[in-house]
């Protein structure tokens, strides 16, 4: 047996191959996205390679005490989510951290430990054809990105196309929702920034609708008074309207 092994070692074809079982100079970031009617869920697995781990750790263990505290975990998760963006039909969604799990420093140091993050986001109801765009730019100089969509559980949702750039930092997913018409916006829509803008515009419009006739009336009265005092006798359309108001 021993002889066989010595022979094997001696005859190893790849001279100088490093006996590495771990990720080295890359930071693997694998995201799986799950699309529902009113929600998008995602799981991200981050696996720093041995060579890049010190750099990654410096961004996690910010007080450099050799312990990843809960606060540091949350801060790092927020940073990762901040480096990501998710839009549906052009609306940027607010990402909510659902859960986080960090492997021990020793495990990550060896290249086998993972950071697992789960997040979700509310999705406004929209038309039958939808376009999701996910971007991940976290640690892009050392990252090896993977992004995939799970087959939707809802049989009424059908994926029609997937597109990525070479690095998979950009991912576009087109899907169709059966039995959906472009109808009233759901409550989720109101929580988005676009929703609030819309609401503000509506209020402004209502305000104008209420105040403008009064202002216009007053303005016209002033104009007519001015015209009369200056001896203008020719009727003008404005003064015609004002006469009505006077009554």
């Amino acid at each position, binding site marked *: 047996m021993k002889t066989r092994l010595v022979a*094997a070692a001696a005859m190893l074809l790849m001279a100088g191959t*490093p006996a590495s079982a771990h990720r080295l100079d890359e930071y693997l970031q694998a995201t799986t996205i799950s699309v529902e009617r009113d929600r998008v869920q995602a799981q991200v697995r981050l696996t720093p390679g041995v060579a890049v781990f010190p750099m990654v750790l410096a961004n996690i263990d910010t007080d450099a005490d050799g312990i990843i505290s809960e606060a540091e975990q949350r801060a790092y998760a927020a940073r990762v989510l901040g480096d990501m963006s998710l839009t549906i039909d052009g609306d940027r969604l607010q990402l909510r951290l659902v859960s986080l799990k960090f492997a021990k420093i020793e495990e990550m140091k060896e290249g086998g430990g993972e950071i697992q993050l789960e997040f979700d986001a509310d999705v406004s109801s929209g038309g039958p054809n939808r376009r999701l765009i996910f971007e991940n730019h976290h640690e892009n100089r050392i990252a090896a990105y993977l992004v995939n969509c799970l087959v939707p559980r809802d049989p009424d949702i059908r994926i029609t196309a997937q597109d990525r750039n070479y690095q998979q930092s950009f991912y576009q997913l087109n899907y169709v929702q059966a039995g959906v018409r472009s109808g009233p916006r759901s409550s989720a829509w109101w929580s988005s920034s676009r929703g609030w803008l819309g609401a503000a515009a509506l209020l402004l419009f209502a305000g104008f609708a209420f105040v403008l006739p009064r202002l216009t009336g007053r303005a016209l009265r002033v104009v007519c008074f001015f015209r009369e005092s200056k001896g203008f006798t020719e009727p003008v359309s404005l003064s015609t309207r004002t006469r009505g108001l006077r009554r």
Partner: protein
Amino acid sequence: MNVFNRRGRRGRRGGAETLSMKTACGILTLALMCLPVNAPMAQTTTSRIVSAANTFLSTLDQKQRQSVLFAFDDEKQRARWSNLPTTMAPRAGLSLKELNPAQRSAALALVSSALSPKGFEKVQQIMEGDEVLKTSGGNNPLFGKDLFYISILGTPSGKDPWMLQFGGHHLAVNITLAGERGVLTPSLIGAQPALYSLNGKTVRPLGQESDKAIALLNALDENQQKQAILSYRLADLVLGPGQDGKTIQPEGLKASVMNERQRTMLLDVISEWASIARETAAAARMAEIKADIKDTWFAWSGPTTVTPGSNITAYYRIQGPHLVIEYAPQRLGGDPSLHVHTMYRDPTNDYGRRLAAK
């Protein structure tokens, strides 16, 4: 038979959808293979595995038996496998290192009884490769044949479901047996080095998986290749360890637009994983996959050429309603053709859930 019923339901949903004669024959074959078999040979196969399991257990002392046995539904133990060395991702059960020569021999006889000769040879080559890795790395304690673990979930039985797990660095064989039926998913079959020489003979544990896949790619026409070849890099397995129960959206070229010859080649690639299992289980599995073949996808990412005698450095994925195969060379500081991870799954039946539910 589940598969038969499911196809039937699909047919009804489809209305005018009719099954071709060939598909019908395939399903019939599958149904016959999966029926509670009365054939003496099939009974012999399972009883042989049960007998090998009991022989192995009889060689162990009480403490060792406690270490090796788990409840059949122990979800933690089911999922306790990885491509990583056992020192980095600890396994449970008994390692070969903890066994005396007789126990070790009985353990390997059990694994051998549950696999085809070709499948067991592949397992041995992967273990041998890890020993080469250990030796070439100056007796690196991360690697070696001693660091492969065996465990049994449930009670070995010719009737009730139970599981045999065997694995270590780059290997996770999960075999669920239920009567005469057997399931080999999920299994991780990797190799490092994926090409080495032992006693004057070149060994490529995953050589056929590489050669057959590139032959299939080359058999596709230009238009088909355009569909099959993905425009992005895949650095690792998507559905590797810890990703049980997930089904990703398939991509690439659908086999429905392949010709018969290309589909046969695709089945031949798939058979490299399916045929690791014992022959009856492999035949049933291949019949199931064949029935689904037109709904199966082939996707490729990376170089489309290979040095003769070497392994490809491209990733590929084969995905069907009951199948996920991934072949993922690893760029871990070395030549990716020498370090390969592969994954073999049935998203509808990993750990034999479909079998055990019956």
